[in-house]
């Protein structure tokens, strides 16, 4: 029952986050409910009420451009209106570059004979989708172990048994989220404003040690049972280069708080996935007849190479 309650709490928090994020994407005009990309070359504008057909179907009432290039207008070849007259679809001559936010201007919107003024609308990709793509990207597509080759020492060290692999993965995820968020905060509000970014290596490694120590102390006091299970891995966490690589990447790419959270979570979960996959194979390997010179690390490396090759298949994939 207690676990169930916790689950609901987590779900509620997630829901609140989702609502907050969706709420942040509203267009700026009161008569326009939603704007979105559709297919490769269409933009859909959803109005709050029915609009006049003659107005809506007139192409010259709309102008569209990419946000960084306001002087270069995109060519609109057709406008169609849905049956209830609430949804206008703009069709463009060329494919749209969906990575750029677009600006659509609808002049003198006319609804049931009344003029409702001009609306300047931002059309963006769904922000939540973007966050999700960062998470999946760090977890699978750019998996830190198999495509960036980081954290290998610990990876080969603890991937012998499934139980240790999972324990290490979970501990690592917790610590990396905590330390990456701390590093992000310090970098954004202390190092960067005061032009101290050359100190980033020292500061980040210090924060990592600090968060390892903090998790150690808290876990020991709050849940000794959990500490008994996961305490051993805490020492190893600090020897993992991923934990220092993630803050460096965050600092390089200037991510905001949500994006940083997603990247660090993805890095941790990706490490967990890699450990789990590897340990499953290595458990099976104990039953196999490996040539004596390959026993131990060499065969593990060859295996990791096979995993890396298969992860190469995800390379460049884009979600949303």
């Amino acid at each position, binding site marked *: 029952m207690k676990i169930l309650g916790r689950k609901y709490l987590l779900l509620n928090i997630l829901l609140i986050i989702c609502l907050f994020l969706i709420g942040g994407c509203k267009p700026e005009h009161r008569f326009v409910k939603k704007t979105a990309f559709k297919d490769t070359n269409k933009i859909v504008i959803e109005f709050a009420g029915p609009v006049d057909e003659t107005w809506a179907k007139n192409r010259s009432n709309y102008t569209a451009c990419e946000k*960084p*290039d*306001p*002087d*270069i*207008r995109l060519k609109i070849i057709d406008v169609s209106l849905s049956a209830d007259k609430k949804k206008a679809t703009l069709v463009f001559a060329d494919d749209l570059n969906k*990575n750029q936010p677009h600006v659509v201007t609808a002049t003198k919107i006319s609804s049931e004979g009344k003029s409702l003024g*001009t609306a*300047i609308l931002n059309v963006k990709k769904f922000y939540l989708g973007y966050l999700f793509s960062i998470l999946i990207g760090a977890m699978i597509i750019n998996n830190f172990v198999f495509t960036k080759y980081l954290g290998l020492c610990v990876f080969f060290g603890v991937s012998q048994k499934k139980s240790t692999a999972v324990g290490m993965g979970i501990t690592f995820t917790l610590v990396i989220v905590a330390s990456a968020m701390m590093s992000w905060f310090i970098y954004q509000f202390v190092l960067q404003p005061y032009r101290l970014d*050359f*100190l980033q290596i*020292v500061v980040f490694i210090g924060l990592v040690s600090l968060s390892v120590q903090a998790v150690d102390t808290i876990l020991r006091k709050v849940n000794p049972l959990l500490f008994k299970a996961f305490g051993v891995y805490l020492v190893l966490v600090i020897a993992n280069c991923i934990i220092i690589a993630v803050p460096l990447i965050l600092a390089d790419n200037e991510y905001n708080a949500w994006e940083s959270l997603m990247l660090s979570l993805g890095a941790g979960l990706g490490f967990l996935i890699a450990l789990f996959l590897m340990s499953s194979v290595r458990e099976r390997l104990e039953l196999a007849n490996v040539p004596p010179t390959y026993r131990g690390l060499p065969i593990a490396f060859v295996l990791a190479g096979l995993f890396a090759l298969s992860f*190469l298949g995800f*390379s*460049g994939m884009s979600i949303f």
Partner: protein
Amino acid sequence: MKEIIRITVGLTVSCLIAALLMGSVFIVTDKAKKHNEHVNIQRAMLGLLGYTRGHPAPPDLRLYTMYRYIIEDGAIRTLGYMLPVVKGEHGGYQLVVIDLDGQFVNRFKLNITPEKVSEASERASAIKAVLKPPKTFVYSDSTIVAKLGQKRLAYLLPGKFPGFKTFIDVMLAIDPSFKIIGLEIMEQEEDPGLGAEINQDYFKNQFKEKSFEKIKKINVTKEPLPEEYKKYLETKKGRDFPLPKGVVDTIRSKYQDKDIYALTGATISSQAVTNGVKNMIRKFAYRINRLDSVISRQHIPVAF
């Protein structure tokens, strides 16, 4: 208690020493870093124009940089070009504001010296001094105009577009009729052995000498790169097997209007570069024509 004090003092002292060391190294290297970056970009630009160490640039070659800003005043958006002007009248730089339909709006002289103009923060404060507060502005891009004697030799366009994995940073040189003179990949993080091959001569030299008409509708073909063409593309730099003069001309005219041959195993990277280059030239040609007509109508004494 005594121990705690000893530990604290020890740590503080070592932190101070470390900070002092890092700080001094930072101060020394920061200048050198900026200088080296500048030299590298300069060398890449001259290289694109065909000037190398063995064939240095003539003394009357001048490179002028213009910067484009987007100015927002409530809902109205205009373009601001920061242009170098001929010394004598005001010297230095002027900000020319053009509306989205290419009509002249306003012009201001800026209080900035040519030495400081490469610093983004210096430019921003110079523009802030002439634009009144409700107006905001964001930096958009820059273009370098190469001038030899009295005539424009080429435009150098730095650009950035998404590749297969992350962004590809390029520098493109085109002549006044928008024919490509050369393409240089400045930075990329494609897969080594696959997409990273865009950096090879036999790929990026394919763009050379493509005319504006061709580039407007250029595409990528998946046919294998013909052996003779590959040889031609790689001899451009004058190493390995030099081809006889007659052969060079026939190959050039044969492949001049062909599409770009994609790299084996990296079609998407090839496509990304091709589309990126195409869009850069299209947008630039559109803008420079409008800007030039404003310059000639308003008699702005631009340096280039």
